[in-house]
């Protein structure tokens, strides 16, 4: 099963894509993914029910979050209500250690994203702050990366023995599925996704035409 693990909809302040249009686009353009995860900035979108859309387009549409820490942005998969009380998702200065710890405690998993990107990515902070403990997975392929950003991410992951996922970081419809993650088995919901990530059997893939 292939999922784009990083996408934003109009629910994010800088997102311009409607979720229905993502679905239409994936089917119309025959994008090789089986679903995507909406990782809205600094929030967890409790309200939206994408079940009917998922059924209509036969796609997995899962919900997660992208929060902000001193090491840059971090995707949190498997968010449930108690975690949103334990962490203030809107806080742009969350300590990474707390995000990792609370995610773990609440059955979620935290994955630093676009680490090669200046300031908002982990690579830029490792020198000053040291290599954080508790990270297992890094987003090593990001659809919005420029230049050597993905390469820097892969080098960091490889040096630390961390695993890598891929996500498009799409903010507009036509960018969905540029990068994704391949899992060996089916993933129907957020719980399955956390399990699959913990099983550590996945690989990041990219369909970007350039690096």
């Amino acid at each position, binding site marked *: 099963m292939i999922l784009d693990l990083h996408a934003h909809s109009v629910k994010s*302040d800088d997102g311009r894509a409607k979720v229905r249009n993502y679905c239409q686009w994936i089917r119309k353009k025959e994008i090789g993914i089986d679903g995507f995860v909406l990782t809205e*900035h*600094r929030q967890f979108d409790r309200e939206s029910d994408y079940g009917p859309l998922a059924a209509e387009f036969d796609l997995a549409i899962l919900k997660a979050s992208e929060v*902000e820490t001193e090491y*840059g*942005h971090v995707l949190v998969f498997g968010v449930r209500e108690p975690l949103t009380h334990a962490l203030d998702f809107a806080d*742009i*200065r969350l300590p990474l250690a707390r995000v990792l710890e609370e995610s773990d405690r609440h059955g979620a998993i935290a994955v630093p994203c676009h680490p090669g*990107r*200046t*300031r*908002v990515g982990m690579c830029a902070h490792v020198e000053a702050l040291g290599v954080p403990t508790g990270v297992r997975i890094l987003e090593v392929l990001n659809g919005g990366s420029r230049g050597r950003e993905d390469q820097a991410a892969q080098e960091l992951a490889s040096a630390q023995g961390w695993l890598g996922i891929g996500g498009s970081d799409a903010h507009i419809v036509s960018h969905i599925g540029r990068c994704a993650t391949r899992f060996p088995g089916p993933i129907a919901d957020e719980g399955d996704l956390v399990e699959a990530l913990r099983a550590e059997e996945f690989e990041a893939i990219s369909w970007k035409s350039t690096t």
Partner: protein
Amino acid sequence: MEIDDLKRDWLNLDFDEQKFELRADQMLDFARAVGETAPRFTDPDDPDFQAPPTFTARFHSRRLLPDEFPRIGLPLDAGKAVMPQHPLRAGTELVGRSHLHEIYEKTGRSGRMIFLVARMELYEGEKLASIVDSRMVIREKPNQ
């Protein structure tokens, strides 16, 4: 600088008003330089001659931000949205009124940043002619 304080003190208050004139020569050069070829943008003799839709993005308020707005850093251009309301003809005078429409914060490629959206509403007489949103980003100075 607390974002809620900025919102409370500065959102939705007009801070600038300015008049602008739509000049045919500028409309034409603007259109040609960006590759427009439709006669309504490139031929002043066309009965439907008008400014390209984003022409109003060139109009600026006298100041980027209200005079008393806290000096938290240098505002940089982060994007622009234009919402034309109807065709604009040469010789028209527009009045642009500006207010801060949105204020929010995030960490971006350049560290912690405060985003401001300054909205200019351009009126032709009583009629709203165009809306221009200018997104600005202020990179927080250290120890702020």
